[in-house]
C-alpha cells in the first residue's frame, strides 16, 4: 500500500533504507531539520546541512522513485544560545526559495527554557513573514505536556492559521488538546521510547482520523524507517478498512502538505 512518511531524517539513514521504504510503498518523504546528535560549532555547519537537505537528499531519494521534501529551521536543542540561533536563522530565507522546501520545522522546545522560547517565537515570526507552514517538535518524556502547551500558546499568539501547523510527537496525554485547538497532530512511531504502531492505532480508534498522521522520524538513534507500513499492518490486522488506513498514511499527509503548492506527489 502506498504511503507518505511525513517526518523522517533521511540524512541519518543509509541508501538501503530508501530502497526498503520504496519496496514497502513509500512515495514521498518530508524531512525536517533537526539536531545531528552533536552541537554544530558554527552557523556554517547549518549552511552545509541546508544544502544537503535541498540539493543532495532529493537526488538520493529519486534513485528509488521517492520524492523528497524538507523543512528548515534551527532545532530547539541548539536554540538555547539566542545569538548563535539568530546567526543560523539569518541563513534560512535564502533557502526558502528552494523547490523542495515546504516550510519552517521542526521548531519547538526541548527543555522548556526561556531562551528556547525566544527563538521559537522568532522562528514563528519568520514563518509568518514568509507565509510558510510550520512543523513542530514537542519535547520528550516528562517535558512533553508542559512544552506542548507552551508551544501552542506561542503559535496561537501569531497570525498563522492552526490548520497550517502540525504538532508532532503527540502522545495520549497531548493529542486531544492539540486537535481541540485546531492544529494537525503527528504521531511518531519508535521501537522503544516513543509511540508504538499499536498505540498509534489505539489513538486513531479513540480520537478519530481527522487531522492526524503517523511518521517514523527515522534518525541516527534506534528507530525504524518502516514504522509507517508497520502501523498500516497493525490497523489492517485489527480489521480497519483500507479507506481508513489510506486516509491516515496517505490522504491526511497529502491534504496537509498540499497547502504548499510545491507538494505535488505523483501516485504512479
Amino acid at each position, binding site marked *: 500500500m502506498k504511503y507518505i512518511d511525513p517526518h523522517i531524517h533521511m540524512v541519518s539513514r543509509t541508501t538501503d533504507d530508501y530502497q526498503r521504504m520504496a519496496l514497502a510503498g513509500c512515495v514521498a518523504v518530508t524531512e525536517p531539520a533537526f539536531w545531528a546528535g552533536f552541537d554544530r560549532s558554527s552557523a556554517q555547519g547549518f549552511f552545509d546541512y541546508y544544502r544537503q537537505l535541498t540539493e543532495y537528499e532529493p537526488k538520493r531519494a529519486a534513485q528509488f522513485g521517492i520524492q523528497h521534501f524538507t523543512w528548515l529551521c534551527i532545532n530547539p536543542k541548539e536554540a*538555547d544560545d539566542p545569538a548563535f540561533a539568530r546567526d543560523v536563522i539569518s541563513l534560512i530565507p535564502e533557502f526558502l526559495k528552494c523547490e523542495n522546501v515546504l516550510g519552517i520545522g521542526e521548531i519547538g522546545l*526541548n*527543555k*522548556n*527554557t*526561556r*531562551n*528556547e*522560547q525566544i527563538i521559537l517565537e522568532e522562528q514563528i515570526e519568520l514563518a509568518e513573514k514568509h507565509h510558510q507552514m510550520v512543523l513542530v517538535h514537542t*519535547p*520528550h*518524556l*516528562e*517535558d*512533553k*505536556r*508542559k512544552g506542548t502547551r*507552551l508551544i501552542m500558546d506561542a503559535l496561537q499568539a501569531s497570525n498563522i492559521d492552526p490548520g497550517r501547523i502540525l504538532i508532532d510527537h503527540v*502522545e*495520549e*496525554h497531548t493529542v*486531544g488538546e492539540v486537535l481541540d485547538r485546531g492544529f494537525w497532530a503527528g504521531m511518531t512511531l519508535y521501537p522503544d521510547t516513543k509511540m508504538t504502531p*499499536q*498505540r498509534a492505532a*489505539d489513538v486513531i*480508534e*479513540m*480520537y478519530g482520523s481527522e487531522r492526524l498522521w503517523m511518521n517514523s522520524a527515522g534518525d541516527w538513534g534506534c528507530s525504524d524507517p518502516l514504522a509507517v507500513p508497520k502501523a498500516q499492518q497493525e490497523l489492517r*490486522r*485489527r*480489521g*480497519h478498512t483500507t479507506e481508513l488506513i489510506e486516509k491516515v498514511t496517505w490522504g491526511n499527509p497529502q491534504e496537509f502538505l498540499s497547502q504548499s503548492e510545491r507538494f505535488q506527489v505523483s501516485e504512479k
Partner: protein
Amino acid sequence: MKDVTQTCPLTRGEVMAMYFLEHRARLLDVAAFLDRLDRTCGDDAADFREVALHQAAKILTDGQPHRTARILALLSDCTAELPQSAEGMKGALGAVPLTEGEQA
C-alpha cells in the same frame, strides 16, 4: 476525559488472542526489572523513578479508562517555571524528581 467505549473494532476475546503473549512477556520484563532492583548491592533508597513506577502500576489495575494518558500525566512536569537556559541541565529522565514535601 473523552468517552472512548467501544472504539476498538475487535471483541475482548480477539484482543486477548492477538496481544496476550506479547504483553505477558512485557509484564514479566517489568517484574524482572523490579526483582533486579531488589537484588542490587548497596543501600541506595528508591529514587523518584522507582516511586513513579510503583504509582503508575496502581493506575494499571484501577479499572478506569485512559490508563496510558493518566500514566503519562503522572510522569509529566507540572511546574510553571521556565529556566532561562538549558546550560548544565541533564537530558529528560522520564519522570519528575520528587519535591521535598513528597519525599517526606
